[in-house]
């Protein structure tokens, strides 16, 4: 749920901060020094746990303690080969399929909920909103029962279920964007006898693209970070995603500290890239104001 909100906020964080309301006072100089110092302390505290991750990932004989690393790239090489690479590929398949299902279904539903007259639309939206808040841990037991009866305890059904868990929020997110697309554009297309599919692909799709992309990024990030759901719903070790692999490393008989650190970093990189991408999407802003006059 946070990712979607964040997308629009990432830009806000990057925006320049206005000068303080009271610039002239003498006190403000020492105040500034104090807030800079406090901020630096907070920054150091937040940085502290990450130090080990970075140092150990580069260290050829890493342990749990922070040491000057004996520099090596072997840990990263190991994280990108063999079964480690396989688990990352699994993560990509799992998150990719889940995102595709949720975003396509979500965009179609969002369009209908935004534009069409639908009986009981109010209650329907309320149920969707309610679903975004249901703790997923309770779903896992009935879904496990269902999937194990069907013989579905593998990667693709798991992706389908992950898609369903992100679907309510994606519908909401995309609907908000379609609501903002001026109706006049769509009506103009209808005058030209465009069908529903054409309108969706050629008018609504491109104009609501930032919203659809944000929803897709939210879906991907959520699926990528998921742990409990693949832990229960995927039985074959060859199909396990990266999150489960990291957990397996800690329990291993011979703990490879450097590998754990390198793999954890590699596993986090796609998320960082996607967040950066989403903040870009929003920096461009909505350029619809020019499309309709008046």
């Amino acid at each position, binding site marked *: 749920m946070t990712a979607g909100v964040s997308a629009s906020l990432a830009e806000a964080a990057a925006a320049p901060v206005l000068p303080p309301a009271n610039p002239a006072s003498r006190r403000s100089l020492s105040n500034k020094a104090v807030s800079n110092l406090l901020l630096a302390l907070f920054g150091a505290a937040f940085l502290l746990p990450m130090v080990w991750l970075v140092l150990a990932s580069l260290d050829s004989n890493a342990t749990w303690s922070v040491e000057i690393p004996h520099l090596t790239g072997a840990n990263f090489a190991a994280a990108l080969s063999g079964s480690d690479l396989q688990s990352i590929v699994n993560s990509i398949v799992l998150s990719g399929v889940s995102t595709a299902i949720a975003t396509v279904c979500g965009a179609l539903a969002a369009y209908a909920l935004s534009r069409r007259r639908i009986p009981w639309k109010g209650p329907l939206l309320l149920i969707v909103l309610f679903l975004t808040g*249901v703790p997923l841990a309770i779903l896992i037991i009935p879904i496990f029962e269902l999937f194990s009866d069907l013989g579905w305890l593998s990667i693709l059904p798991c992706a389908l279920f992950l898609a369903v868990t992100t679907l309510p929020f994606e519908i909401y997110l995309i609907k908000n964007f379609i609501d903002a697309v001026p109706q006049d554009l769509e009506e103009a297309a209808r005058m030209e006898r465009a069908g529903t599919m054409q309108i969706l692909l050629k008018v609504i799709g491109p104009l609501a693209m930032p919203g659809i992309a944000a929803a897709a990024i939210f879906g991907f990030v959520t699926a990528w970070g998921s742990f409990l759901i693949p832990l229960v719903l995927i039985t074959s070790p060859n199909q396990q995603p990266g999150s489960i692999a990291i957990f397996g490393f800690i329990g291993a008989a011979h703990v490879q500290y450097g590998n754990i650190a390198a793999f954890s970093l590699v596993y986090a990189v796609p998320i960082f890239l996607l967040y950066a991408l989403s903040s870009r999407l929003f920096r461009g802003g909505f350029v619809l104001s020019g499309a309709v006059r008046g």
Partner: protein
Amino acid sequence: MSSQADTVALAGQAGLPARPTGKRADRQRFQWSSLALLGPSLILLAVLFVIPVIYAFYLGFTNLELVGPNAVNWHFTGTQNLQRLGSDPTFFLSLRLTLIFIVGSIIGVVVIGLALAVLLQNSVTWLRILVGGIVVVAWMMPAITAGMTWYASTTAAGTFGTLLGMPNSDFLHHEPMLIVTLANVWSQTGFAMLVLGAALRNIPHEVLEAADMEDASRWQRFRLITLPMLRPTIVTTVLLITLISLANFALIYVMTQGGPGNSTNILPLYSYQQAFEFNNLAYGAIIGNVMVLVCAIFGVIYVRASRVRT
């Protein structure tokens, strides 16, 4: 097929003479193609979300097990699981730990997030970008990576012990609840910082300047103007932090798996443990029901809090 239906409806919309059906032509009518658009989502949500939630509620009152005879021939057992909950000390411990975890996380996240948001406004640019970046990176990390990082830092010989001059003390073992809560605060604060920072920037300058004219102190300005104006944002943030913390299975599972003993065994972990490690699917389900109840209670509190005078 549907395009024809569309055209008829369109004719009405576009102001062309529609067939006189007796209905108003200027109001949109239900189109069957809407069903095709909504269909996939509705079916998926019904079959894999709504019905399972209801089914999970029912399973809590049965004797379903993961393996053995009760895996196949299970049946409704009334309040048997409820009675078991009532006499299960681990459950009450788990409930208490859950509340500690949620309340501790909320206080930590909101206080530190707000402090950071305010400090960021009053600091030099390079420091703002650097520290803001660090906190946001901590927030973006997948829960499993965050848990990994904190495990390494707080275990024996980890960064924290070394820094505090006690390299051999295992903080994660001695103060597990404190450490997992800190780890959760660490990984959620970035979100609060961004949201509250955006809200801070939206407070009109005139209001703060007026307060300066009246010789209000910094603290007065913060307490009497900034805080009340941030109130709706804080309530929303708290609600989201609650939901995320209650769902943050991976973070604690990777760090302690609920241990040592049961000292970090919050409800989602206990539910998982009962269902998939002790094979009591039904008992796990009823713990899940309690979790939904906890969520609902927090939800009601927040709705009330946001309705009180603003």
